[in-house]
């Protein structure tokens, strides 16, 4: 039996909307970075630093970090609850799934702190 105890918002509809809102933020962020890269061939560190240290870009970067964490959690939760269940993993499926989920949360916690540190210290 799989339930939604560990889903981000405990609401499938809310998770659905958050998944899409964060997807839009992340897609726009990637477009900005790719555009910046293409506009600056043979980039040096000063250019890179200048781009990421502007205040709007710092805000956007940290927003992207948080969006990544939420987006990845909803995605990994969905994958975990689809596959790590009794049908495939037997009686201990719930144990395996919780271990998997806690592992994912730890990784995402590190990503959150690491990502915020990278951009905030600039």
């Amino acid at each position, binding site marked *: 039996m799989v339930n939604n105890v560990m889903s981000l918002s405990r609401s499938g509809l809310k998770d659905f909307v958050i998944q899409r809102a964060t*997807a839009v933020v992340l897609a726009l962020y990637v477009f900005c970075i790719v555009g910046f890269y293409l506009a600056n061939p043979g980039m040096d560190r000063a250019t890179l630093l200048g781009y990421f240290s502007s205040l709007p870009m710092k805000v956007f970067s940290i927003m992207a970090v948080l969006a990544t964490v939420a987006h990845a959690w909803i995605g990994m939760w969905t994958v975990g609850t689809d596959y790590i269940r009794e049908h495939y993993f037997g009686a201990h499926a719930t144990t395996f799934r919780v271990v998997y989920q806690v592992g994912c949360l730890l990784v995402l916690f590190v990503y959150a702190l690491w990502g915020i540190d990278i951009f905030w210290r600039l």
Partner: protein
Amino acid sequence: MSGISSDSIWLDRGRCRTGSPNKVFCMHTHRPVNLALTKFSFPLAAIASITHRVTGVALFVGVAALLYLLDIALASDEGFAAAQSLLAQPLIKLVFIAILAALTFHIVAGVKHLLLDFHIGDSVGAAKIGAQISIVVTIVIVAAAGVWLW
């Protein structure tokens, strides 16, 4: 679930013959389960869908590599040079392009997914065309990026 055989599943009371409060054990799972995944012929839309999922999980790992490269490249001039020399190594460059390929497909398929949410292209025929377009667009972008970066 303690005390209950792992060969059993739980069903909501409404689907059980034996009435009892909440959920009751009432059915064995020795019924045939036909999930011979290797024998199925999956439609292209299904392959695109599972690839969207696989690339998502790959990106969960790949984000660490991207954060690491950005971290050292921004931290110091030595770090920037180190990131450049890392990306110059063929194997690392290949992995980097693979991460970009996963990201590209994930975004392209994600845009398709948003269109499907608005019921744009969600008929059987359109879904196949959508899957074809997303695969072709990804290949074109990744090929161009691969040539550019290599």
